[in-house]
């Protein structure tokens, strides 16, 4: 197993790690960096539960090798709040009941953040399309749509 020293920038902090080249970003985040807010769901790129942002774009960390993110900026759920203040999406998810068991929530929030950064005033259909790769087994999705719409409105003020 070839190992390599990689420099990872996660949530604004730079860390140097010795990692096996075959290890996924998901494994390194959870096991090496202790950032367990990013979840395992299927290990197949199907459920979206492990979504993180790499240079602001949503990426499935179970299908990404840690060495591929060298020199790029990774944001996990632990880095979504800024300056100790929750992201408007986090507050809106809480207030709308958009999380039930909460397991899909980190991946859902990061995908939604990328959408709102790209398109601050999305239509309901835009939100559905953007989040269609993130599965939720509890909510039936509608309260998540309400939360993203609310956060978009409030971010726009």
């Amino acid at each position, binding site marked *: 197993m070839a190992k390599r020293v990689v420099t990872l920038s996660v949530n604004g902090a730079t860390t140097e790690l010795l990692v096996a080249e075959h290890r996924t970003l998901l494994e390194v985040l959870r096991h090496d960096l202790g950032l367990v807010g990013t*979840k395992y769901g299927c290990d197949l790129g199907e459920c979206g*539960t492990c979504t993180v942002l790499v240079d602001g774009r949503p990426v499935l960390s179970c299908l990404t090798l840690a060495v591929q993110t060298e020199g790029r900026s990774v944001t996990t759920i632990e880095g979504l709040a800024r300056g100790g203040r929750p992201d408007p999406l986090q507050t809106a998810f809480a207030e*709308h009941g958009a999380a039930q068991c909460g397991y899909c929530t980190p991946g859902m929030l990061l995908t939604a953040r990328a959408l709102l950064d790209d398109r601050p005033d999305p239509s309901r259909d835009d939100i559905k*399309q953007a989040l269609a790769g993130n599965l939720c087994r509890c909510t039936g999705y509608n*309260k998540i749509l309400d939360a993203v719409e609310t956060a978009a409105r409030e971010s726009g003020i």
Partner: protein
Amino acid sequence: MEAEHTVVGRRRPRVDAMAQTTGRLAYADDVTLPGTVIGRQLRSPHAHALINAIDTSRAEALEGVLAVITGRDLPTAYGILPVSQDEHALAVEKVRHVGEPVAAVAALDAETAEEALRLIQVEYRPLDDVATIEEALTEDRPLLHGQGVGPNVHRSVALEFGDVDAGFARADHIREDLFFFGGNTHAALELHAALASSEADGKLTVWSSTQVPHYLHRTVATVLDLEMNRIRVIATPNGGGFGGKTDLFSHELVAAKLSMLTGRPVKITLTREEVFYTHRGRHPVLMWLRTGFRSDGSITSMHLRTHLDGGAYGSYGMASLYYTGALQTSTYRIPNYRFEGVRAFTNKPPCGPKRGHGTPQPRFALECHLDQAAAELGLDPVTIRLRNAIEPHTMTVNHLRITSCGLNECIEKVVEASAFDSRFGRLGPGHGVGLAIGAYLSGAGLPIYFNDMPQSEVQIKVDRGGGVTVYSMAIDIGQGSTSMLATVVGERLGLEPGELAMVTADTDLTPVDLGSYSSRVTFMAGNAALEAADRIRDMILEAVADELEADVGDLVVAHGRIFVRGTPDAGVAWTDAVRAATERFGSLMASGSYRAPRLAGPYRGSGVGISPAYSYSAAVVEVDCDRDTGMVDVKKVWLAHDIGRAINPLLVEGQIEGSVYMALGEALFEEQAFRRTLHRGPSLLDYKMPTFLEMPPVESILVESIDPEGPFGAKEVGQGPLLPVIPAVANAIHDALGVRIDEVPITPDKIVAALRDLDRGGPGRFGPTDLPDFDFGPPWPVEPPEGFAVP
């Protein structure tokens, strides 16, 4: 007069909402102790085989491997139901389905553990397998449990309530139908995981994503041969349950054993593929239903046969079997009723409880059957249901006690909101609406193992700063049980739910609650919390009444203050009231408990179906269907639910919407499908679930019947709303295309086949045409309850 509620009935976020949205909520796989090592299980590649020998020597010799175990190391059989103790943590002598655990290892890291599994050599002698209900009920297939050949019957039942033949003799019209409901699985996004740590003092702690920490506690004690007081079980917040984490699992017991052997904390997290093999999901059920009607649509008699494909082990199957026959009478007045059912063993992962446990299958059958009978009688779907709808405060022919019942209001409201009357049969080709109803338990009336102790206990402690801590073993699986408890206690103590400290699901710290299953927590833990909160409240009021020189009866507790009614400014703050009460009574602690009334009827099997209260639901589904492709687009779902009282309407709506989602998945997409005994696709790539793009808008309508025994009048909402949606989809597709798909899931190929049948002059139906030949024996006659009037 009781003051208006200040906390109950308000839309509020979950008390743990910010922990969830910041990623801080720790699920089982997120918990790691210093020195934690990895456990992995070796699983059978055979559906049915004898184990001749297992050689673990090469695995044991691998560097980094700490322990290797097989069935010999965990020889005690167990099972969730006392009548079905047929499982082993690791297979002993025989495997009965692909994916059954055979051996396990603990190693320093995951790669070493995987390599060790490859080095374990198992010598199997394959046997003929049993793949279907039909095969299982023949005489010449090998027995899964026992020696030789014969019908693989787990259990059969035959009960007759009233006089079914006489009821059919009085009928003006009799209808018979066959239905099949394919099995499906929970697919909670969180993978099952357990962490076990055996300490130097001999104490064992197990963290697990389980819905039933108390039952796990008992089983760890039995299988590991430890006293319960040497074991601590902590249920971590479940990343979705839906019934999938209500059983006792191999990996929980194996992690415990490996930790005891190695002296290290051992964590086992299943892969997604392993979760599909672990299963315990919806039983495939083949059903035959015969009903007699008078010309006005009223039911005179009903005869139901169910055939359940149970998979390889008992699990909850005995209860699942009885549930397929138990709740038909909870929605309709059925004066005479015969139920025959059989659960068969097959060489597939065991089935168990999934949301609605054993009742969505016959509910699908009954609601489709009623629509067809209505059409033949010249009635509409609303009329035939209202004609037969059960009344509040009645007994059913099979001895269910019905108390509060908002069924009529649910039907009327959902019909009005969807304009069903003016749209049914009138939307034109390809467009349709369908109606169906359902009912569900607010908690199983009996515990899983026989005992007379309370089904739920809650303790409350108040500290000198006014802080309130609530202790309950109820585990939040996403349904919001912790928020419910905080709301109930907050209401009685005049505090915001978010101000309370909640300690849950830890057998060292919290008093027993039987678990998050059978929609029991709001009713049972809620009532226990209410009793505990009122005992604290009584102490506080007594102390404050003295200080204010007022009568206890004139005091109001609200908004963090205690005051005389009408003069809120003149009262005392909560913290001062706590000081006064502590001066008077010493340490402020109280407990409460809940025990369901004794409701079982006078027959074997009557323990299944009884509940202290039933929720009611009615659904209308609107669809657009493509005649060429058979694709179904669900446009909207209206769902009215009798919740008793909504303790938190936001969370109630969440359960309704989630139930509608899960029902649509089952109705249209999801199936735990096999090629004989091999799973067709144990991955989320192959097991198709609805995404944002398939989910329609849902209009939730809350009906509050204020149950006389529920906490603040509340009943369940976690499971009931799923029930009517599946048949309402089938009925809507019939309205749109004129075809009956009597088999779930209703996939496009089945619709196209039924349309071709219609075009060829056939009835336009897709569904089963035969029943296996099985002798249920003479039905056990049960007299209806005293005073039961035959309509």
